[in-house]
Structure formats: structure tokens, C-alpha cells
């Protein structure tokens, strides 16, 4: 039984970003190379990376809205990155995403190590405020915003960028 679980977990671990529901499992660590891997894996279309925290009340307040947005745009790639730092409770990430309807979204969590360096790699402008969202177009052009999302505007961006990438 335990061996079977390990095998299942191993298979899940190597699934691509667009793979089936994995959020109930432990989130994958967000390391120095993760961002580039995400970009490489999604060169053909727009990518939304949403940084959030269990410790951030504003993030938790809008998490289910991200779930609704994801359902309304099934072809969009929305990646969730949990950015809780010291004392992070990774076991709560999967259930929180599941509850918000984001159980099938690729899920990462801040890896162990130098948070400032990992954050700098995401953007030198990002001061660590949450929620924080990066929008990456198919050509690699990135924009970002802090705070609650304007989902209507986000939908427009997605439509525009999806058309552009065709």
C-alpha cells in the first residue's frame, strides 16, 4: 500500500504543469529555476502566476474568485504559488485550494532558502506584498499587479493574448 502511494506520488510529481489535479498533494517547491521552467513550458500561450498566502487575509478573501475565474476559463493556465514564509503550513495549501475550486491548478510553495533571492528572481520590484499576480504573454512579456484582481480585466487580457498567440 505504502509503495503504491509512493509510486502514485512520484508519477504526480513529474506531471507537467497542465496535468490533472495535484493540489491535494504537497505543493511543489518554488526554487530559483522554477520561474524559467514555467515560462518555457508555456511559451505557446498566456500564463497567469498568482502568488498568495494562507497568512494573507486579502488573499484568502479572493481565492474562491480565482477558482471561479479558472472554471470560467478552462483553457487558461493559472499557476498558484504559496509565498508564506517562516512557519508556513504546507499541509494546509492543498485543502485551501481545493475548497476554493482550485484543486486542479498547478500548485507551488516557496522553497526553503533565501526568500529575497527567490523573490528578486520573480521581479526586483516585488516587495513581498500579497496577493501578487504576474501575467506572462506568449512572447514572454510580463506585467504584474498587487492586491485584489479585476477579473473582468483579467478575462479581457486573456482573450487578447490567447488570440495573439494563435
Amino acid at each position, binding site marked *: 500500500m505504502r509503495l503504491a502511494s509512493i509510486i502514485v506520488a512520484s508519477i504526480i510529481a513529474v506531471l507537467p504543469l497542465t496535468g490533472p489535479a495535484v493540489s491535494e498533494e504537497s505543493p511543489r517547491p518554488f526554487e530559483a529555476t522554477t520561474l524559467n521552467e514555467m515560462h518555457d513550458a508555456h511559451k505557446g500561450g498566456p500564463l497567469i502566476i498568482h502568488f498568495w*498566502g*494562507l*497568512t*494573507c*487575509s*486579502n*488573499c484568502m*478573501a*479572493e481565492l474562491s474568485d480565482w477558482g471561479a475565474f479558472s472554471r470560467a476559463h478552462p483553457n487558461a493556465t493559472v499557476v498558484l504559488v504559496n509565498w508564506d*514564509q*517562516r*512557519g508556513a*503550513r504546507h499541509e*494546509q495549501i492543498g485543502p485551501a485550494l481545493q475548497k476554493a475550486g482550485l484543486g486542479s491548478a498547478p500548485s507551488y510553495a516557496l522553497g526553503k*532558502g*533565501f*526568500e*529575497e*533571492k527567490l*523573490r*528578486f528572481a520573480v521581479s*526586483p*520590484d*516585488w*516587495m*513581498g*506584498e*500579497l*496577493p*501578487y499576480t504576474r501575467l506572462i504573454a506568449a512572447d514572454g512579456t510580463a506585467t504584474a499587479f*498587487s*492586491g*485584489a484582481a479585476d477579473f473582468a480585466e483579467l478575462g479581457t487580457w486573456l482573450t487578447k493574448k490567447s488570440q495573439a498567440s494563435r
Partner: protein
Amino acid sequence: MRKKLQAATLFFASCVLGTGSAFPHDDMKQMHHSPPATACNTTALACASVATGAFAPDGKLWVTWSAGGRVSVASSTDLGKTFAEPVTLPKTELQLDEGPDARPKIAVGQDGQVVVTFASRDEKYNGHAFIARSIDGGKTFGALQPITSDSPSQRFETAALDQDGRAFVAWIDKRNVAKAKKDGKHYAGAALAYAWDDKPGGMLQPATIARDNTCECCRIGVAFAGPGRPVVIFRNIFEGGIRDHATITFADEKTPGPLYRVSDDDAKIDACPHQGPSLAIGPDSVYHATWFALGRKLKGLYYAHSEDGGKTFSTPMRLGDPNAQTSRPYVLAAHGVVYLAYKSFDGAMTTVDVMTSRDSGKTWSTPRSVAMTHDTSDHPLLITSPAGAYLSWQTLQEGYRLIPLEPQS
């Protein structure tokens, strides 16, 4: 006198709860605190991710830190080169609050009084804050006392000792959030709460709410405008959901005065910055404030001063390089100098820069780098002894450092 009050200002933080009563600290074995080469899970200072220092009036350095799931306290008579055997406070039922702006804090008064505050957090991230006291010069600490008994959440507790030795504790409280939720009403943010000791070294009295609808995400700052007159700086929620900074100066110990805005950052943003302000008050009664702005008008680190008790502040002065993740500003007014410190990251190295003003914040020296590290680091803090001002900084690679700040020309 003001200097003593400032030296006693506590910067309280995150948590531990416990049941113990007295914690021996008899012998004064010397403890080295350089960081270990491998992973570190003990309660030693070398394993701490955050550490807060404060000087006693006699010049002894006191440090409290969080490591191995516990809060510890130790003193040093040689400016942090070596420490006496630490006292580890009782384990709390819940794990310590390790949020980005949380830390254990310490204030040291006359007659051997040492006060430590910190908070723990439950599975819903509600904070439970405690105060631990020693009246015998840190040899033993009494049982942990919750800072309040009737609130579902308290965070960012910050204490200072008044001239008479009584502790003033302020924190961000969610009792009115819970009440509003029960009544089906909306309540933005949390509240600023405070409590005073009933007598020096006594017990905290029941809490009072000084202000509803304050930001729930960030540390607060406390300084004294005079005996019985604490001043609190915090991120307030103004009309329209604008999360800009404000001060409240107590008219007397029971009367929080009017709220005055520090700056018009226009922070209309539903995000948790996890970066709170810092406040110092000089012997000339000038208020010095520094903060992180995330507004539509101002973004980044700023400093301003007030010569009229917080009613109006000078035009905010931008600190640091906006492209270098400049963060965690801190201010100290001591020995006739105002010091500002903040840290920056250039992609490889974190540097702490210090600026000084000899005219109560009107003009400033150029920034000078005083310390650096190549890995994870705590916020840079500024503390003062009777002899001089210091940077107090915990880093993963170097451990705890106390670095003297010579005023710049």
C-alpha cells in the same frame, strides 16, 4: 529621562504560550553564538531566524529570539560577543507566530525588570500574545500571561516601559471583527488595542480599543512623548479603504488622543504588505517616522518628522534604491542624533544602510553600508545604550551581530 524611556521601548513579537512558573538562570556560563554549518533546530541563538536586542540602563545587552519553536532570552556584558546562559520561556500550546513582521520583543527597565512579549498562532492564523516578566534581572521569569483574556486574536504586540516601570502594551486585536461577524456586519481590518500594568512589575489591566479599522497585517511602533503618554504608529484604514499610516498620541494614560495621518500614500490596495512602520521621539519632542508605502502616490520606503506632536509631518523623504528591494526601515533618536536603517538586496547580497541626521531630521547624511550578508536575514533594528547607538541584526550566515554606529560627518 527620555533616553531611558526610549531604551526601554519594547519591540514585542510573536509567540510562545506556556504553563511554567520560574526559570532558573543561576550560573553565568558564557555562550558563543556563531551559526552552525548545518541545519539547526535547537533553541540556540545561532538557530534563530529573528532576534531583538535592547540595552538595560546599566549598559547590559539583552536579546530575545525565536528558535526551535521556543522564545529565549539572554544577556551580554561584552556587547554581544558572548552571552550568559539563556533562559528559555515555557513552550506555548500553539506554534509561534512566525509571520514576516512578527518577532519576540524585549524591554528592560530599572531595578532588574525585564519584559518579553511574543505571540503564538492557531490553525486559523489567529494570534495569541503573551507577556513574560522578570523582576530579578532576568534570572527567572514568571509564568506567561496572555496580554488579554477576551479576544479571539492579538498580533504585533509591542510593549514599552513607562518612566515608573509600568508596561504599556499595544497590539492589533480582532475582538470587534468577531463581534461584527456575529452581527452579520462588515468590519474592515482589525483594531488597535492597548493595556497598562496595574503597577510596576504587576499585571496587565483589561484591554481598551483605541481605534477600530486598522490594518491587520503589519507591525506597529511605540514611543513615549512623556510620562504616561505613549505614541503609537500604525497602518490605519482611512475612508475608501486607504491603508495609510497614522499616529495616536495619548493625552494621558487612559485617553488616546486624535488620530493624525503621517502621509498621503494613497494606499488603496487590498494586499498585505507585511511591513509595518517605526517611530522614535527625540528629547526635543520631534517625532520621527519611517514606513513602507504601497500607494498610488508613494511607493517604497519613506521618512518624515513632525514638530507638532504628530499633527503634521514633513514632506516624505524617499529612502534607498527603488530597484534594490529596499525594505524594513527603522528609526532611532539617541545621543543627539537621528539614525535611519534599512536593508536592500541587489540579487546576490543584502546590505544594511544607515543614514544620520544631527538637526532632528531636517537634513541627512548620505547612506553608509554598515553590514551585509549573502543569505536570509532578519529586519535590521536600531538600539541604544547609555554609551552609543547600534545596529542589532540576526542573519543566517553570521548569527547575531551588534554593530556600533558612529555618527557620520
